């Protein structure tokens, strides 16, 4: 039986990769993928804790997260396509319309 701390370390690495990628990469598609990585890191930790603590709610919650992630990806990619059609640009630091 793999101890739960291994999973925690794994998800920590995965989440950090996702967060760091979201912050440093300029490409919108990469950023979306990074969001997916973070979400999946969370999923893994949820499943791990759920099994260790023998709690089914965590497993159910994972399905919700997957559903939200799917929706997010669909909307996010649609936005990216529209943005690209309008501006021929997929680099996030070029979009500063909401500058205060």
């Amino acid at each position, binding site marked *: 039986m793999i101890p739960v701390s291994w999973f925690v370390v794994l998800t920590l690495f995965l989440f950090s990769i996702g967060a760091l990628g979201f*912050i440093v990469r300029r490409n919108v598609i990469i950023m979306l993928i990074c969001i997916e990585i973070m979400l999946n890191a969370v999923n893994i930790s949820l499943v791990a804790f759920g099994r260790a603590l023998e709690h089914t709610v965590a497993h159910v919650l994972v399905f919700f997260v997957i559903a939200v992630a799917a929706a997010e990806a669909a909307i996010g990619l649609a936005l990216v396509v529209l943005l690209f059609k309008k501006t021929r640009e997929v680099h996030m*630091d070029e*979009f500063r319309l*909401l*500058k*205060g």
Partner: protein
Amino acid sequence: MEYVIWIPFLPLIAATITLIFGKWYIRKQAHWLPCIAVFGSFLLSFKALLDVIGGARANFDLYSWVIADTFHAAVGFQIDPLSVLMLAMVSFLSFLIHVYSIGYMEDDPGYYRFFAYISLFTFSMLMLVSANNFLQLFFGWEAVGLCSYLLIGFWYQKKSAADAAKKAFIVNRFGDFGFALGVFLVFLTFGSIYYEDVFARVHEIAHTTVNVLGVEVLLATLIAVLLFCGAMGKSAQFPLHVWLPDAMEGPTPVSALIHAATMVTAGVFMVCRCHEIFELSHVAMAIVAAAGMITCFMAATIAPTQFDIKRVIAYSTLSQLGYMFMACGVGAFAAGMFHLFTHAFFKALLFLGAGSVMHAMHHAPDPTDMRYMGGLRKYMPITFATFLIASLSISGIPGLAGFFSKDEILWLSFVSEYPWGKLVWFVGTVVAGLTAFYSFRVVFMTFFGEFRGKEVLHGHEPHESPSVMTIPLMILAVGAVVTGWLGVPHVLGGHNHFAKFLEPVLGHPHINLPYWLYGKKEWIELFLMAISVGVGVLGIAVAYVVYVKKPELQRLIPERYPALYRYLYNKWYWDEIYDATIVKPTFFTARSIVQGVVDSILIEGVVNGLPDLIRRGGESLRRLQNGVVQTYALIMATGAAVVLLLVYFF
């Protein structure tokens, strides 16, 4: 005697309905409801008067207004000789003047408004006089002030009328401030604002003193003087007299009802009502007498120089109010009330007569200027006859109302126990002569000689007023004669019913004669009477010579003593003095300190400074929002990390 509640409430109902429905539905018929309501309250007042004469008394609360710990205030009625007398007089005069107004206010665009206001005034005045506690007295006091304001400014399109209304209201504020303090002090001292509680325990404070700004004064003096402040405002006594002459901007029936017969006498009524408090303090009595004497004399010297018929009568009102206060100031409260009562009739008559004259002259640019009148006797005989009766009455010609009440005051002041009694008598006698002079100056300038207004009337002939106006004049003329017969003194074979009727409330004055004069009391009274009648006749004679026989004498005083004449013509410069000492400094303080410092620096500093601070804070914070999603993510992540670290370590 529960029915007395309808005496004030009938006019209130009429006023409310007229005010709400008058403009669109009642319009030209607006006089019916108020007239009927006021007539109803007159009938009820008369019934109450008969009941009180028959020995009935009433003192009950209708509705508890405030109950807070020991403070208890209610809408309540006290029916005793004093209040029932005022009720009967006010409702009777109010009814006559309502009827007169039907003719006088005809075709005025504010017809319904006039009747609503004047009914509301009647309600307020009746509440004032029938109160059984100080708070309701104060309520009535302020309500009549409000109606006075509304009616002086009735023709609010005219700037002078609007200004006069404001002046009346603001000057009254000074007096009412003192009056309110007086009522507070009454409650503080006695723990009750009911007349019967206060007056039953008033002797307890006979020797109580309080420290006012380092000076020990009698508590009674303080209460009485504060209450008298209100009377000075409402009854236009020196130094708060300046509003009354200006109040003549209102319609003439208003001048007759409010600014001559009823509202302005509220001060005298109040002093009489609280006479137990005033009598405890010689200082307060002296102040009452002094205010009365100064006003009385001052107004009587100003009146002969004015050309506006209403202003002359207004100064005459001031002067007669001074007379009433003089009577109160020597302890002759019943005599003061008697003069109030007779004065109400002949002064209302004088004003309504003047109104009738103005009605005849309404084509003139200034229908109140006596220089364009003259000879109106031929055109308006009824007005002339009634006006003459009123003038004879006010001049103290024997047999008429003014004679009895005035001589009662002069006699009682001459033999008063107060040391200033003789002075009051002297001033009163001098003023009696001046009164006769200026009253007949009006009669002669208006009704005698040649008509001088042909050019200003552009071919219109002056005409007698309609009978809806002359009938009230005739009724009042009867009143101006017979009301005096209620108080015929013993020396003339009468029984002085009036004073006896009021004795349960007002007591009777103490007569103080040297012992060696005791047997000659009647002779002294007759002698004083002869003096005042002589002075009155002399005044009329001088007026006749100056204004009918030898008109060139009119220029004598202005040419010989121009400074004196200017001084009197400009009303002793009181308006200018107040303008320089109160109005201008107030404006200066308002503009430079209140507006310049408090408003534009303090208040605007806070009001504008706060948004300024927020805007500047926002300016610097907005740089954070650079529009780059990744920056936000970084900040969010940093924040989350910080929170996690905090949770972990603490």
